[in-house]
């Protein structure tokens, strides 16, 4: 499991990059979902998002999940290329697999990498 130290994490398995405002699905989540075959981003640039509200809908070969906004703020950008290549979420969840960028997000309530790793380990049991 890959958990970059510069990112912040949610209990619903999203990551947030306080430096760039980018958000997406964690490596742990993509592994649980397995092969992702569909992604729909539910918000557009300019929309206001609330922390915990759905921003994307993801379907894999065997499961379906929603991705929630890790922080509240304004959507600055949407990764338009992603829905045409949903497998990117499996291959590069923290890079090319970013979903949206959020402006003005407050990451103070989120977990750091160590806390998230521990949280994932606990769930495995």
């Amino acid at each position: 499991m890959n958990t970059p130290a510069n990112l912040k994490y949610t209990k619903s398995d999203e990551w947030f990059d306080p430096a760039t405002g980018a958000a997406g699905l964690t490596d742990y989540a993509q592994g649980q979902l397995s092969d992702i075959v569909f992604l729909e981003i539910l918000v557009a640039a300019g929309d206001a998002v609330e922390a915990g509200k759905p921003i994307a809908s993801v379907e894999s070969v065997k499961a379906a999940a929603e991705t929630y906004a890790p922080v509240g703020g304004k959507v600055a950008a949407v990764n338009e290329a992603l829905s045409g290549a949903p497998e990117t979420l499996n291959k590069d969840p923290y890079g090319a697999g970013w979903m949206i960028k959020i402006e003005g997000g407050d990451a103070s309530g989120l977990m750091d990498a160590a806390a998230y790793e521990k949280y994932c380990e606990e769930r495995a049991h």
Partner: protein
Amino acid sequence: MTDVSTTGQKNAVPPLNANVKIVEPTIFDLSSPGRKGVTFPDPDVPRAKMPQSLLRKDLPLPELAEVDVVRHYMHLSKFNYSVDGGFYPLGSCTMKYNPKIDEDTCRLPGFLHTHPLQPIETVQGNLALMYTLQEWLKEISGFAAVTLQPAAGAHGEFTGVLIMRAWHKSRGDHKRVKMLIPDSAHGTNPASSGMIGLQIVTIPSDARGNVDLKVLKEQCDDTVVGIMVTNPNTLGMFDENIEQVVKIVHDCGGLVYGDGANLNALLGIVRPGDLGIDVMHFNLHKTFAVPHGGGGPGSGPVGVAAHLADFLPEPLVGILEEGDDETPPLFGFVTPAKTIGRMKSFHGQFGGGLVRAFTYIAMHGPDGLREISEYAVLNANYLLARLRGTYHVPFDRICMHEFVAEGQFEGSDVRALDIAKRLMDYDFHPPTNYFPLIVHEALMIEPTETENKDTLDRFADALIKIAEEAKSQPDLLHSAPHTTPFGRMDEVKAARELVLCCWLPENYDVNA
């Protein structure tokens, strides 16, 4: 085998790799220009002028002779496992034997060739059958009224949920938005509620597999539409607290929906209406032996308690004029006073569903129906007793018509899926796997009443053998099945490439 490409004329699809073996060509692959199957006589009326600008230029259907078609489907049929062919212990699906006489009765010309909009005087046979079936289902379930219209279980659920909503609205109670659904429920329950925008609240199961009463009480308030309970639940357990569940929900003003998927355990055992359930669907294609048809058609009548009868979909079959010793009653259609409306065209799955179920109930009578459930439960408990020592059963008490075991072993990487696939090598259909969601690596086993002891023993022996194989040769299971005509599928390829139809081959000469 010929090297046939399925590359579409219209939808560009990735060409099939030349190394891929074609076991049976598609009906389009088999087409040959100019071949004819069933043809029709020339019209004996003058030919009318056709509006040229509105006509289609080409009709890209295959061209085959009748024998080509018969052989093709005969070949395909051989790739299917079926109840006629063997044991199908698919939990929650009630894959019982489908009596052959039902196939004959439902195809009697009087049923087969009657139009749904004929005047009622010309279809009194159909209407009498439907009326009687409504009455029988009421008696079997303890409900006050029954509609035969819904086409399948999920359609019946949707009907029931709409009725529950309409009942609350009719009382001026507009703030009810929550549907309570136990964590062991079928996916159709939340999906049916979701279709009318209800908020789903999941209620956990307790250690004995019953609805957790403490959580239920906490969730029950004046925003609850109701609860959707399956009893016996998908663990195969009869909820020991069902009457309390009903009371708690009724006390907060909610209604109780019963998912009738597991009614095969209850015929002549207990009537859901007597337990206080307000509305329930029947699956005629499970409980009353209507065959599953490779996925359908089903038939999902809905029964309701007296206070909900006015909300049933239109139309119901009723008696328009009472009969006497000389004349039979006149049957016709009636519209309930506060009906939710129509759920489908016409009157329900008449021929394939209602006539078969009617035949089945008529041939069982009250004692025969009870015997169905008794033996369904006996068979399940027998298998449970034989397998308990080998497979972990997380909710282990006397089960009803099915039970759930775990398809995993300490220290082994064999999973429920591997066990399921390996069962095919022993010529059994696998149980339902990975459902219910609350059991890890679930194997949900429903033998039904139509299997004999020898079959059950062979099945138990196979599962016990497979448990040994899981330890001694796990790879045999990981790569199973081995003896079936097809092996495991590349499901990722199917979902990523999305080849969803084939067309006539690219080099096909449409003008030949």
